[in-house]
């Protein structure tokens, strides 16, 4: 049974609209709070980035020093060759056996191929490489390469995201100052005029 008149429907619509309005206002308030949090996180990120850059510089200085010492040491005529070579000949089979055991137990696949590759590798290697800790230096350099790559990837995706967030937060809705023509962008150092969204940005 239809219960209400048109006037009552209208009154009900008004009451319901007021509720929706309040919910929209609450959502907007929540968004403003999240925006503040994003800005705070970004400030912390900037501070951390400075520390990270300093640490990177220190690490690279130490790496360069290591590389320099390695180069100088390699330039020396090899000494103690006989002693080293004798030890190396005894070291190789043990190293091969230990490595193959480890590989079969932990890494599982393709032990045969690795065995041949390893033998060739050990025959080409020099005990001098061990003596100067060449393996540790190689690990450090590989790590340095990976760390640079990870930072590049992070920075790249963050820059893209902040570009969009800058646009978003520059909107007059977020700045709360309808008459402003310029406002501060939380993520970049520049002050830009407001953006007018192109048609293509609209969902519909």
């Amino acid at each position, binding site marked *: 049974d239809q219960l209400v008149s048109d006037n009552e*429907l209208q009154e009900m619509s008004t009451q*319901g609209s007021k*509720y*929706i309005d309040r919910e929209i206002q609450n959502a907007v308030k929540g968004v403003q709070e*999240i925006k503040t949090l994003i800005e705070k996180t*970004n400030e912390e990120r900037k501070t951390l980035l400075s520390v990270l850059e300093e640490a990177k510089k220190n690490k690279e200085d*130490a790496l360069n020093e290591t590389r320099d*010492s390695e180069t100088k040491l390699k330039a020396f005529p090899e000494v103690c060759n006989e002693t080293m070579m004798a030890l190396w000949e005894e070291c190789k089979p043990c190293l091969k056996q230990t490595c193959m055991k480890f590989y079969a137990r932990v890494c599982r696949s393709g032990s045969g191929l690795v065995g041949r590759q390893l033998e060739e590798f050990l025959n080409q290697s020099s005990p001098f490489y061990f003596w100067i800790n060449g393996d540790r230096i190689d690990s450090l350099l590989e*790590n340095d390469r990976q760390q640079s790559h990870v930072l590049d990837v*992070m920075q790249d995706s963050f820059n893209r995201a902040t570009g969009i967030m800058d646009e978003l937060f520059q909107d007059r809705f977020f700045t709360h100052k309808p008459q402003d023509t310029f406002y501060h962008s939380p993520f970049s150092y520049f002050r830009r005029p407001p953006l007018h969204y192109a048609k293509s940005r609209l969902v519909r």
Partner: protein
Amino acid sequence: NIMPLSLYGPLNFQDMFQPFFEMIHQAQQAMDVHLHSPAYQTPNVEFITGGPDDRAVCKEIRHNSTGCLRMKDQCAKCQEILSVDCSANNPSQNQLRQELNDSLRLAEELTKRYNELLQSYQWKMLNTSSLLDQLNEQFNWVSQLANLTQGPDQYYLRVSTVTSHTSESEAPSRVTEVVVKLFDSDPITITIPEEVSRDNPKFMETVAEKALQEYRKKKRV
């Protein structure tokens, strides 16, 4: 006047909210696209100081066998190579080797420290990404509602019909069925039990709350 947000100037609801949904989505995508890729994982530096990262060692062995050299500690003769003292033959070479070992230890320590910072930085990124998720959750429905709006309407919620009938459940009771539209959405039917009468000031609040919940549920699906 039930239209809010007049303080934002002449923009209407549609102009104001419509672009946000897509922009938040774009920002999320930009953050997430690499977030879970292997390239985003900080390298495990434990193994450079002889730690037990088996996966990294396996990878190195497969790649060029250098991973095997990490096992030198388990072979006495290999260890002895490191202890060979050549100072009698060439003292300056020995001193240089000492310098190399010192700078190597320092570089390893600083690499570890850098990696810890890199991980903190990565956490900061993940925090930002989760804040964007929250922003989306908080705002998505408003933006989607705005997207449904064809033109200016005085009402955010419009009641089309209110009917009363007996429910078809196991214990039949009288219920009020209210059909509403949020902006230009499809009609949403809300069922209110008889106990909440239309005279109750909470009646329309309950209807609107349920309508909004229903709308958000549908949008999430």
